[in-house]
């Protein structure tokens, strides 16, 4: 099993996430598996610039333990 961190936008199904926003998945799981668990359409995920560790990623990307999955960003400061 692997654990990935998912910062899910509002409206997603959060039932597969633990209290701190982590999701457990089988080894070899893909980003699309996370999207399915969140019930997020692939098109919407692309629009929201879904990324793994900051790199925009296609749904068929294989996940690694500890990956951080995010949907868009807001920079603060400068």
């Amino acid at each position, binding site marked *: 099993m692997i654990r990935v961190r998912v910062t899910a936008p509002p409206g997603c199904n959060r039932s597969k996430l633990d209290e701190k926003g982590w999701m457990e998945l089988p080894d070899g799981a893909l980003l699309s598996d996370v999207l399915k668990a969140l019930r997020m359409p692939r098109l919407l995920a692309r629009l929201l610039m879904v990324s793994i560790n*900051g790199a925009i990623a296609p749904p068929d990307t294989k996940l690694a333990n500890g990956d951080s999955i995010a949907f868009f960003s807001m920079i603060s400061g400068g």
Partner: protein
Amino acid sequence: MKSCMGHILEVDLSDGTIVRKKVPGEVYDQVLSGKGLGAWYLYKHIPPGAEPLGADNIIGFVSGALTGTGALMCGRWMVVTKSPLTGGWGDANCGGTFSPAIKQCGVDAIFFKGISEKPVYFYMDNEVCELRDASEYWGTDAVEAEQKLLGSSSGKRKASVAVIGTAGENLSLISGICNEGGRIAARSGVGAVMGSKKLKALVLAGSQKIDCEDKEKVKELSKELAAKVKKAYPPEVMKGKIYGTLGKVMGILPLSMPLDGSANVAPLRKWGTSVNTVMAVNMGDGPVKNWGGVPKDVPALAKSFDPDNILARETKKYHCYACPLGCGGVIDISDLNGGEFAHTHKPEYETIQAFGPLLLNNKLESILYINELLNRAGMDSISAGNTVAYAIECFEKGLIDKQQTGGLELKWGNDQDIVKLVKQMVAREGIGDKLADGVKKAAEYFGPDTALYAMHVGGQEPGMHDSRYDTQLAVHYMTEPAPGKHTIGSGGMYGNMALWDICSWAPPVKPHPKKADHIPNEAIGIASCATVCYSMLVDGSGGCYYGQLMGVHMWKLTDYLNAAAGWQRTGDEYLEMGKRIQTLRHMFNIKHGIKPADRHLPKRMQGDPPLRSGPLKNATTLADAQAKYHWQAMGYDPETGIPLDETIQALNIPSLLELEAEVIA
């Protein structure tokens, strides 16, 4: 702590003596280096009542505990002093190359006291450590002076220079200290302190080795981070405008949501912080028209501040020391003002916002030019922008007239006269002389009717992030010992960092109604407490704000510290260390007569009167009430903001303050 050099220098500018001292290891064990070492030293050595621009004040240049160890994004240097802008604790920090240069001279910090009779600069390499005559550099701008001073170095390696421009020499209370051709440690008026001591610059050219305990582990962590950062770059087809659209969506959404800091990496690498401008205004984070306006007030917002307009001018990327991100850049401005300047550092969001939407000025070219003017003068663009906004609003309302402005038409968006005003502020000429010390001093001069338009907290102008948008930010503006700083914490930053994954008591964030953030409560107080504790850890390490914003999963600060120091400390223990640093800074303020509970946000920044349209329509922030929860979580008296004795004892501060640095023969 093996990654620290264990020594400091004390330089007395009045008599020219230089003393090297050994710092007890327990100091580093408890407060690291950076702001922590600085707070420990300044608390002990600046007497109460010391005039910030007087001989008793001390200004320190401190490196970070992780600087030079191979840890990435840990190359920031800190300036610590008693602030002439606020009368209390003052600090500023900057990237560039100066932080490792301090340690390569074999010390963690250099502290200056006294006042020199004539302008001097401090020079140090492996063999030489002395004060030198700076008369020929006095009166030159920071960029020019740095170039000349680099030529004066006789060390084995290229020197690194920290230098004031004319603003610091002129004792402008909003002046900073520059490095690397105009990058600036800008806040708290630190440049004026250097100017008051007739200290033009520090030139460091040492080449001593910086060690740490587990180099392999540090290397492994850096390799992991660098690999992730390398992959994170926006697709070529992606335009900067999309962030403005996202900002609009976020402004409309009734929900607040946690955002993952890792997603900041790609836009920062491509555009730098300029990508933030349109988004920030659209979502309500970026203040407009001296904090009294709304997005639609800014003419052609999206087109004027499209980050691709700035990117088109970029000639090269700029990376601070040991940074894989490279959010900086050098841009060509040779087409502006008859080619007066060939290039400038890519302006940061704070500068663009402060001289753009805050003034309803949509002439980007004027902002690029002002950016270089201020970098060369060594003047804080956040404070300067807020001060110009104040002057414009007062002029528009008839509280400052054309006679007082010397004929300048200080109208919203009048870029030509804004540029002229900035030049006057830098030179302390005409009305610029009255504005060169920030809005608080200006309002004292122009009268109480103008105070309503002077945006400052405890004397310092706020960063370009709206307190009505983010209550945690509002609390940090107020409760931070160096008030008004936007880099200490905010609700958005808390979500980005995901501290709950390293700290047992930090509450996780889930999507929630935005309105809930504006109701004072204990959970937000705990979150803001965790944030500030972590921020102090970052500053003690020499860490970068953008490493911090990546989140604890990307930039593994506590793992870096454990590896560098050979510790096995937990996240909770590290946040306790951060609390110790923050509490020391608070105690400094209290020792110097500052009452924390006396610092409030200006009414406008609290939403009084409320904005009648836009993303912050009717938004108010009950920052005073929320601050009580923050102080309670910190272990301070919730009413007065003064650390409780039991907290001070639990943090071992009394025994820490008994430690003394020993003179080395």
